[in-house]
């Protein structure tokens, strides 16, 4: 299954299983992208971040289509410690990007090393973004490294990682804390969409 990184484009059709619809939307992009990327192959994936796990390396190998990564430029802002992994604020940015037509950040990506699913988020930017900085809140199952990637308009890939110590992981926290989302689920279902 080809799941490389597309550019900013509309295309996620509503679908009962989001992952499938996204992949369907990406079909075809990978083939075109793969050819374009052969020209830029500086480093093997593992060279950028030494402690990258096998699981994550496999995902990055597949999604980067063989492209290498460089260390730096992308900055990942995360707390050193989190009391629970339920909602950890994260900011991903490329502070030195001029964000011009000729030189901008095309996409930003967050991965974890040890969550049940390693992908966290993919953000697609453009020359109209002005500033390459996105903030979000993420789940961490346990103490681990979080990885960030930036793909620039010149097709180079930049990477960094940050270790976050988690006192109570997201999965454990959700077991110990009562589920407070049932009312919200009912409310969303009552909208009658889908």
């Amino acid at each position: 299954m080809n799941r490389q990184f597309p550019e900013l484009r509309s295309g996620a059709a509503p679908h009962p299983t989001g992952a499938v619809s996204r992949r369907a939307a990406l079909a075809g992009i990978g083939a075109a992208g793969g050819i374009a990327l052969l020209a830029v192959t500086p480093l093997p994936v593992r060279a950028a971040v030494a402690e990258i796990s096998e699981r994550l390396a496999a995902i990055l190998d597949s999604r980067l289509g063989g492209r290498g990564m460089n260390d730096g430029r992308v900055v990942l802002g995360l707390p050193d410690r989190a009391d629970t992994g339920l909602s950890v604020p994260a900011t991903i940015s490329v502070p030195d990007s001029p964000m011009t037509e000729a030189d901008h950040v095309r996409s930003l990506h967050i991965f974890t090393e040890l969550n049940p699913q390693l992908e966290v988020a993919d953000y697609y930017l453009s020359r109209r973004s002005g500033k390459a900085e996105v903030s979000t809140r993420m789940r961490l199952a346990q103490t681990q490294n979080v990885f960030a990637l930036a793909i620039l308009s010149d097709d180079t890939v930049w990477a960094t990682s940050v270790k976050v110590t988690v006192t109570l992981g997201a999965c454990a926290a959700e077991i110990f804390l009562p589920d407070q989302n049932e009312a919200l689920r009912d409310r969303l279902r009552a909208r009658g969409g889908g």
Partner: protein
Amino acid sequence: MADGITRVAVPETAAKGEIIEIKALASHPMDNGFMFRDNGTRIPRWIIHRFEVDYNDELIFAADWHVAISANPYISFHTIATESGTINFRWFDDNGDIYTESAKITVV
């Protein structure tokens, strides 16, 4: 939106060419599919997997979200205030629901 599921923060006015920060929040359980109810049944995966933003009908920002995004997903990002108009937000969830929100901006 009237149903209160989504909220956005967009500056009402901005100077032409100014970089503005936009914030968006949706009320959603973002069920990751790994959790069980007290009675042992699994809570099925149900997340918002895609977020898109149009500025006067041109796509300016998009996100693919996975199960590690927290419940009630929050996001902030930036864009250049190019002209007065409408910024439209769309959240797509696994059940096929689309939540929408829009905000007006005046560029002077």
